[in-house]
């Protein structure tokens, strides 16, 4: 046994280094200057093409109003939310049946090209011969990089949460994305009304104050045994704050982290949200696990039976991010 001979410094550093690699890109700080999504085209003539918009600090010129858009997940849903389903050639992400009604109606006009996991390859993306690609983010493994897309000569936009430099994981950042998208696809009017509508929805749901700023733990894993939490740099963190609560792990710099139940119970959340995407099934398993545990059954949220199920897409950038805030806000006031 020569473990004790190893000095803890380098070991800790090595463990940390590996951890950072393992948890991937979750360390994006939420800098204020991020996004840079002001559209530069909404000038005198709304109908004018070509148009140039700024997306992730990059100028994107769109020659004519796109009619064959290919989209991904929340980015595709944004186009649907803008009422431009008829301009979409196809999309990857949730099947139509799994979409909220208003988005599903628009999605009916676009072809569902497949799920988004595992990420489709670049070839699949350009197969429908798109004139604009809207992405959740780049994906090195699938060959979907800025360089590859630029080389193809097809303009593309991504969501600010996934900007390679200074990503913006705020709800407001997403709203600005939606406005940029609206300009880029020539849905200027819809951009204003839809985003305005979202803002009003959130204002309405959060009009009354919440008593005592309850602490909220968002469980991101469908397996009760391996807790996965949204940290201070996550979109969910801001949603909780907007809704009038306080994120249990809001003090951390990471977007996601893997604490033990001991850590979670020690912080003692008032509300537990299942945001794993496992819906009622994983929530039932989680409740059973917590209630059956001699110690964890003493967590305030468990004692008071304060559990809420959110859809996976309620916590990632896309139109459903509004639903996430509203559901949280209503629950905290319920």
């Amino acid at each position, binding site marked *: *046994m*020569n*473990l*004790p001979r*190893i000095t*803890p410094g380098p*070991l*800790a550093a*090595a*463990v*940390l280094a*590996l*951890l950072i690699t*393992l*948890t991937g890109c979750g360390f994006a700080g939420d800098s204020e200057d991020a996004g840079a999504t002001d559209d530069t085209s909404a000038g005198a003539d709304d109908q004018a093409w070509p148009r140039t918009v700024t997306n992730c600090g990059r100028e994107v010129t769109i020659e004519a109003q796109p009619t064959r858009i290919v989209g991904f997940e929340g980015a595709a849903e944004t186009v649907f939310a803008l009422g431009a389903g008829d301009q979409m050639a196809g999309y990857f992400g949730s099947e139509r049946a799994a979409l909220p009604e208003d988005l599903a109606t628009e999605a009916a006009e676009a072809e569902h090209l497949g*799920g988004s*996991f*595992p990420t489709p390859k670049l070839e699949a993306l350009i197969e429908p011969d798109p004139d604009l690609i809207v992405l959740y983010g780049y994906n090195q493994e699938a060959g979907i990089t800025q360089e590859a897309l630029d080389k193809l000569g097809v303009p593309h936009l991504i969501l600010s949460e996934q900007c390679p430099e200074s990503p913006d994981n705020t709800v407001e950042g997403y709203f600005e994305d939606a406005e940029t998208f609206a300009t880029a696809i020539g849905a200027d009017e819809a951009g204003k009304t839809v985003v305005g509508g979202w803002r009003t929805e959130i204002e309405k749901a959060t009009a009354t104050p919440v008593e005592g700023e309850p602490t909220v733990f968002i469980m*991101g*894993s*469908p*397996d*009760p*045994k*391996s807790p*996965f939490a949204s940290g201070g740099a996550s979109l969910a963190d801001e949603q909780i704050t907007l809704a009038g609560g306080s994120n249990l*792990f809001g003090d*951390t710099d*990471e977007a996601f*982290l*893997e*604490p*033990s*139940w*001991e*850590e979670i*119970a*020690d*912080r*003692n959340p008032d509300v537990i949200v299942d945001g*794993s*995407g*496992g819906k009622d*099934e*994983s929530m039932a*398993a*989680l409740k059973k*696990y917590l209630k059956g*545990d*001699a*110690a964890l059954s*003493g*967590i305030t949220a468990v004692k008071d039976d304060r559990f809420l199920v959110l859809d*996976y897409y309620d916590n990632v950038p896309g139109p459903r991010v509004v639903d996430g805030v509203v559901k949280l806000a209503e629950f905290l006031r319920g």
Partner: protein
Amino acid sequence: MTVVQDRSVRRVPATAVAGTCAVLLAAGMASSSRVGPVDLPLGQLVTAVWERVTVGLEPLTLQERLVTEHRIPRILLAAVIGAVLAVAGCVLQALTRNPLADPSILGGTSGASLGAVAMIVAGASGPLSVTAAAFVGAGCGFAATLALAWRGGGVSPLRLVLAGIAVSYLLSALTSMVVFRADDDRRLRSALFWQLGSVADASWGSLFVPSVLMIAGVVVLMLRARRLDALSYGDLTATALGVSPQRLRAEMFVITSLLTGAAVALAGGIGFVALVVPHAVRLLAGPRHSSLVPLAALAGAAFLVWADLVGRVVAPPSEVPLGVVTALVGAPIFALLIAGRMRDELA
């Protein structure tokens, strides 16, 4: 690890190694019970444990319960799993006469992974079902290896290793297939988490029966350890010494499989303990199995208790999976061993 360079070096007396390991184990357990998110003063901790034992759960606060119902069981589970893995490594290395043998190249770990990962990806979220699937998977993996290696009423070392490698590769490929076909990346995270191992989920309820069985198994293996010495001289010598090598090998293999199956099912795929701890102990105390096996049990327990502690404190509030810590510590040690051996052979 300077020991490696000179094999004629004096052995450390077994009692000294045992004493050191026991002290390390005790120190690890004591530190581990004090360190974590919940910070109880020592007096309160002792009182809480005393009340838990004499009165029950009722008077304990949430924080006290977190220590008595989560932290202490996980420390004990780490110790038991560490002991099981190290002993399994010793036995498998003797059975196969191969210094690289451990449960992961004999089909056990990959079988358990396939079982657990398939269950997780399929969405069965009950913790018991994943544990059961892992145990069945480990059993199937080992059984397939044994069946492939079986000939003439027993198994030979080389056949065992080769069969194990074939089975492991097949099962790992199937696991990758399951992972690749999965349509939910959040489930994959929990599959990965499982594969890297953890004792965070330990509770008294889940701990008691498996621990008693595993400790019994370790004792059985210790009692038979003497016969393993006969095996290491080769099958002919073993036969001359009155040991039937083929049968002994099959028998010991089955016991080891059940033990590691249980360990992997409870704590996931924790690498390097089974491989490295026996080597470290062998280098210090010599290769005689009658002392090697119990010493490895002690050293394995101490190693995993400390590894668990390290995993909890390096990146709070997250925990680093146990398998990551053991490999980070285990890999350099193993690299030194290999380097030392190769120098010996070239000399």
